[in-house]
């Protein structure tokens, strides 16, 4: 079946233009075609009844096909603007992508004993890339990973050698520029060698106010004994669509620790699947989301324990105001062989307005008999006892509420162990607090 809508034609035309103007190695071209074929056959998901994974997320607006895939050189972005608007440190290795395209001029990579931080399109001959790309985020898994794969071009490829110990941050920064309605498909692959340590930051930042459509896919492969500290920062404008897919594949005794932060998009989705495919693997997926006005933010977090002695944590917090809506759908699947699994899920929400809504759904699906699992979720308004207590000390209500919001958020923000990044997120939270308060009631 071919998409007959205007939207379908638009994406088909973009795909054709890309394959003609940006040829890639045969194996990548094949991936592109597979991605396109799959997207072409299924189209975007709809928020209809019975479509459990998408029932809360209305994507009808994507139908308008108004977003431009950019083949030309992106608009120039100054390094100063990046430093001001995005997380940045000269101590990090940073790859910068502007409107989807790799910018060598803005990127800063310090060569470091065997660590490879490359633009994906320039690494087509890399064996590890060939072996791992699109293996864990399957092209036929959903429309967005299919679409992302169809538009494979630039992206971040990070290879950490075995036994590498210096975990100084590697930053993959994807920005969209003002002045257009861009469609971008950022792609990331990180492969951590045996017993290596690394820190990887993915940031998605809009520099303008026009809406955009960003559909990133990131794959993380953790070889035995490796550890990745992962951060995902989403700060987009209120007209944007962001549908992100992250797939994590973990082998023996590896540790994936992830903290995400989301502010902004009109519709945002953070889809994370972790497969603990060998004994003793551990993953922690934490996150903070702030929503207001008519924003919608989804976190779909799923962890599969396939082998014994695994540990997983999911801990999310949300602050919601205005008529915004958020979804936390946390799933832990403990397969029959995954004895001695420990799994914990928690989603806590602070609701500032009557129009805001959280749909929180932590769920455990357990087929092993010797496991330790717990989950919980809460949604509550600002504690009136706490407010009165603070007011009785001379702190006015607005300041008191801001302190409570900051305190609530800080539990997640304080988990960020990269200094410059923690400051950045703190700053974004500080700026967001008055905006959320303005829409509170």
């Amino acid at each position, binding site marked *: 079946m071919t998409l007959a809508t205007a939207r379908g034609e638009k994406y088909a035309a973009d795909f054709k233009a890309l394959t003609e103007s940006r040829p890639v190695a045969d194996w990548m071209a094949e991936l592109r075609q597979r991605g396109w074929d799959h997207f072409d056959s299924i189209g975007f998901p709809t928020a209809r009844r019975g479509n459990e994974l998408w029932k809360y997320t209305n994507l009808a607006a994507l139908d308008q096909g108004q977003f431009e895939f950019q083949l030309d050189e992106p608009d120039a972005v100054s390094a100063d603007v990046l430093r001001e608007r995005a997380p940045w440190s000269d101590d990090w290795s940073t790859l910068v992508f502007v409107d989807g395209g790799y910018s060598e001029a803005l990127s800063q990579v310090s060569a470091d004993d065997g660590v490879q931080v490359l633009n994906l399109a320039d690494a087509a001959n890399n064996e590890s890339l060939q072996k791992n790309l699109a293996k864990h985020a399957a092209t036929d898994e959903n429309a967005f990973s299919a679409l992302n794969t169809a538009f494979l071009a630039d992206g971040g490829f990070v290879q950490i050698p075995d036994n590498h110990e210096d975990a100084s941050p590697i930053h993959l920064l994807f920005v969209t520029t003002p002045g257009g309605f861009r469609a971008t498909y950022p792609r990331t692959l990180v492969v951590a060698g045996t017993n290596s340590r690394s820190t990887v930051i993915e940031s998605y930042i809009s520099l303008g106010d026009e809406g955009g459509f960003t559909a990133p896919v990131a794959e993380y492969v953790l070889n035995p004994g490796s550890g990745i500290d992962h951060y995902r920062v989403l700060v987009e404008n209120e007209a944007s669509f962001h549908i992100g897919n992250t797939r994590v594949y973990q082998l023996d005794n590896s540790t994936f620790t992830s903290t995400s932060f989301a502010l902004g998009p009109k519709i945002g989705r953070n889809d994370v699947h972790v497969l603990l495919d060998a004994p003793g693997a551990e993953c922690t997926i934490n996150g903070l989301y702030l929503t207001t006005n008519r924003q919608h933010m989804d976190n779909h977090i799923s962890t599969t324990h396939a082998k014994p002695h695994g540990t997983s944590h999911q801990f999310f917090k949300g602050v919601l105001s205005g008529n915004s809506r958020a979804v936390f759908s946390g799933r832990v699947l403990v397969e029959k062989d995954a004895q001695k699994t420990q799994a914990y899920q928690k989603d806590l929400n602070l609701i500032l307005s009557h129009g805001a809504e959280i749909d929180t759904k932590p769920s455990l699906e357990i087929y092993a008999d010797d496991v330790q699992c717990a989950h919980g979720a809460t949604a509550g308004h600002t504690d009136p006892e706490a407010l009165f207590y*603070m*007011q009785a000390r001379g702190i006015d209500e607005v300041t008191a509420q801001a302190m409570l919001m900051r305190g609530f958020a800080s539990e997640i923000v304080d988990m960020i162990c990269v200094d410059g990044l923690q400051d950045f997120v703190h700053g974004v939270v500080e700026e967001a607090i008055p905006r959320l308060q303005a829409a509170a009631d």
Partner: protein
Amino acid sequence: MLQVNDLHASVVDADEEILKGLSLSIGAGEVHAIMGPNGSGKSTFANVLLGRPDYVVNSGTVTFDDEDILEMFPEQRALRGMFLAFQYPAEIPGVRPWQFLKAALDARREYAGEKALSVRDFSKLFDDKVKEVGIDPDLVKRSLNEGFSGGEKKRNEMLQLEMLEPRLAILDETDSGLDVDALRIVAEGVNNLRSPDRSFLIVTHYQRLLNYIKPDVVHILVDGRIVESGGPDLAMSVENHGYEQYIKAAVAD
């Protein structure tokens, strides 16, 4: 300093009144104690004075330094120098005690037209007071009141009292749940702060705390009204004979 005249108050949305015509007057430098049986309205009175939104004042007047405070927000009362040491201090997740106190002190100094203390000056003052009140320094690195024991919460209230130096401190059953050592610390805190221009209103069920803090005036509160006022001896009389006689008298009214 504080004038309360024929105060009637009830819980929001409830018909029955808790305070049924309470009057008292506290002068500068005086220490008053309010004693009464459970349910007499002691805590309600303490909370109404600071404007807790759970209560509504039906009639009567309350002035602080001749200013009508009943229409004021709690923070406006606090900035004018009123302080309530809570019976059950709220837990404030994610807010450290020093952040909280810095915000409170900054607000107070701004209201008084003074410059905010620098972080360094504030930290020094804070550390000194923490030591003085005998709070475990590890405790103040945690979220305010979260996971604090009853005694730790009360000490923390005393820390705030000493830092904020109010002109009228209302202690709402600060002695409940305290062992003798903690009681002494509370009493010492209050006694150190006694001065000709600072007043105290100590709300308590038992006479015990008054062994350590000598009040100028003791009031007996029964069924929302003050039924008797007197000197420190009145507290001893309650200790020996209980509230029975006052309750009977109130019912006979």
